[in-house]
C-alpha cells in the first residue's frame, strides 16, 4: 500500500533508480495480486480443472460390472456415435435449450425495457418482484408445473369443474413442450436481469439526439436501443442456454420418455447402469457440444454487433 508513495519520485531521484523502483512496483503488484487470488485459484483448479481432466481420462476407460479397465480406448465414444438414441437425445437437448433460450429472451425483453425506460421510480420494487420467485426451491418451482399441467392438475381439474371438458387432456404433461414451458418459467429472471442492466446503461442523450435528428420511436429503437442492448441479450442467452442443456430436474419431472435430456442419460450411467466411463464420455461429449455452440453463438453475435455498430 505504501508502494504507491514509493513510485512517486522525489526531485533529486536519478532516473535509473526511478526505473528500478517502477519495475519493482509492477512486480510487487503482480505478486500481491497473484498471492491474494491464489486460494480461490487453487480451489478452482483442484475442484474443477483437475476433476474435469480426470473425467476426460475416465471416458477413455471401460467398465465391466465392478472392474474398471484402465487401458485407453475410444470404445465409449464409438458406442455414443453408433447408437442413434444418444444422438437423438443430444439433438433434443440442444433443440429444447435453444427454443427455451429464444422464448425466454423474447418474452423478457419487453419487460426489461419497461422497467428500464418506463418505470421512473420504484425500479427496485420491480426488480425485487421479478427476482423473488427465484429464491424459492427450484425443485418445487418445477414441480408446480406438474401440479398445473398434470392429469389431475389445475388446468384439467379446473376445466372439468367448469364443465368444459369431460376427460382430462393428456397432451399437457410429459412431453418436450412441458419441458420448454417449465424451463422458460424457471429461468426468466436470468434473461430479464442482464437485458435490463444493458438497457439501463444506455446513455439517454443518444436517444434525445436521435429524436432531435428526426428519428421516430421505431427507427430510434432499431438503430440505437437494440444494438446497445445486444451485450445483455448475448449474456442472457449464454446464461440460459448452457445450464438448461444439462438440466436434470425439469426433464425428469415433466418431460416423460419423449422429453428426456442429456443429464438423464448421464445420471442413468452413473446410477442404474453403473457404467461410469460411458457416463463420463457422455458428460465430456455434452460439454464439448455446449462449448462449441456457445462459442459459435458469441462469434456470430460479435459479428452482428460490429455490423450494426
Amino acid at each position, binding site marked *: *500500500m505504501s508502494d*504507491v508513495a514509493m513510485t512517486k519520485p522525489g526531485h533529486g531521484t536519478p532516473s535509473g533508480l526511478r526505473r528500478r523502483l517502477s519495475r519493482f512496483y509492477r512486480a510487487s503488484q503482480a505478486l500481491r*495480486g497473484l498471492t491474494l487470488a491464489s486460494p480461490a485459484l487453487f480451489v478452482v483448479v483442484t475442484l474443477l480443472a483437475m476433476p474435469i481432466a480426470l473425467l476426460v481420462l475416465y471416458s477413455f476407460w471401460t467398465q465391466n460390472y465392478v472392474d474398471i479397465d484402465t487401458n485407453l480406448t475410444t470404445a465409449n465414444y464409438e458406442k455414443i456415435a453408433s447408437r442413434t438414441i444418444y444422438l437423438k437425445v443430444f439433438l433434443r437437448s440442444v433443440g429444447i435449450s435453444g427454443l427455451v433460450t429464444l422464448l425466454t429472451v423474447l418474452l423478457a425483453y419487453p419487460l426489461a425495457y419497461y422497467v428500464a425506460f418506463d418505470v421512473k421510480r420504484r425500479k427496485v420494487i420491480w426488480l425485487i418482484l421479478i427476482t423473488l420467485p427465484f*429464491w424459492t*426451491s427450484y425443485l418445487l418451482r418445477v414441480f*408446480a*408445473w406438474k401440479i398445473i399441467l*398434470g392429469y389431475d392438475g389445475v388446468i384439467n381439474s379446473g376445466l372439468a369443474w367448469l364443465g368444459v371438458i369431460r376427460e382430462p387432456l393428456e397432451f399437457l404433461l410429459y412431453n418436450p413442450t412441458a419441458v420448454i414451458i417449465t424451463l422458460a418459467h424457471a429461468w426468466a429472471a436470468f434473461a430479464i436481469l442482464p437485458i435490463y442492466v444493458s438497457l439501463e446503461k444506455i446513455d439517454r442523450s443518444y436517444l434525445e439526439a436521435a429524436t432531435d435528428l428526426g428519428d421516430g420511436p421505431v427507427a430510434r429503437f432499431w438503430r440505437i436501443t437494440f444494438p446497445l442492448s445486444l451485450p445483455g441479450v448475448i449474456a442472457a442467452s449464454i446464461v440460459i442456454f448452457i445450464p438448461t*442443456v444439462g438440466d436434470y430436474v425439469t426433464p425428469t419431472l415433466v418431460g416423460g420418455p419423449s422429453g428426456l435430456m442429456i443429464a438423464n442419460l448421464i445420471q442413468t450411467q452413473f446410477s442404474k447402469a453403473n457404467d461410469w466411463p460411458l*457416463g463420463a464420455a457422455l458428460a465430456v461429449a455434452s460439454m464439448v457440444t455446449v462449448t462449441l455452440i456457445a462459442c459459435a453463438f458469441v462469434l456470430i453475435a460479435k459479428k452482428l454487433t460490429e455490423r450494426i455498430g
Partner: protein
Amino acid sequence: MSVTTFEKAGRRWRGGYAFFYLGFLYVPVLFLPLFSLNDSIYIALPLKDLTFKWYATLWTNEQMHAALGNSLKVAVTAAVLSTALAMFAARAFTRYSFRGQRPVLGLVMLPMVMPEIIVGVSLLVLFSQVGIGLGLHSVAVGHTLICLPFAVAVLMSRLEGFDKSLEEASQDLGETGWMTFWRVTFPLVMPGIVASLLLTFTISFDEFIIAFFLSSTEGTLPVFIWSQLRFPNKLPGTLALGALILLSSFFVVALAEWVRRRGSGIGGQTPL
C-alpha cells in the same frame, strides 16, 4: 403529436405486458401455499376445505428435520468458505493489475457457467478416485466451488467503487496495514460481505444436482424434497414445506435489501 400518442400507447402496452408477465412468474409459485392448505391429499381444484394440518405434520417429521440440519450445515460452510476465498480474490482483481489477470478471473468465474451435472459428476469421479468417501463434506466442497463466482461478483462490484485514498490516508496517519484493514477497509466492505454470505447461503440451500450426486445417506433438504415427490401421500406436507421456504426466502431477500440500502450510504454509489 402522432409520435407522442404512439409512445404513450407503447408504454401502456408494455405496462400491461409487464403485469401479465409477473402473473406468469407468480401463479405457479403461489399454487404451493394454496394447495398446502387443501384438506385432501389430491392436488386438484376445487379445494376441499382449508386446513393447517400439513404444517403440523412437518413439526414431527424427524427425517425432514435432519435434512434441514444438513442443509444448514452445508450452506453455512459453503457461504463462509466461498465468501472468504472471494474476498481475497476480489481484492486481487480490483486493487492490483497483473499479467494474466483476465484468464485467472475467467477461471475463477467458470463454475458459474458450467452445467451443474458436469460439476457433480466430475467431483464424484474425483472423490471416488482419491478414495475420500461421500458425505456432507463432499457436498459442502461442491457447493463452495459453485458459490465462489457469485461471491466474487458481489464483492468485486462492492470493491470497484472503493476509494483507495481512504486507506492511504489511514497509513499516512500512522496505522499499520492490519489496523487499516480492520478499521477502514473492513467496515466499508462489510455490506458486500453480508450480501455475499446471504446470496451464497441461498444458492447452496437450494442446490440439488451436486448434493444429489455427492451426498451419501445424509441428504440435504432439496434431496429430501426430491425423495418425497415420488409419494403422492407425502405431497401436501412437501407443499407446506415449500410454502415455508417461500416465506423464509421473502425474509432473507428483504434482509439483504435492507443491508444493501444501509450500506449504500457509505463508499459511494451502488447500482440500481
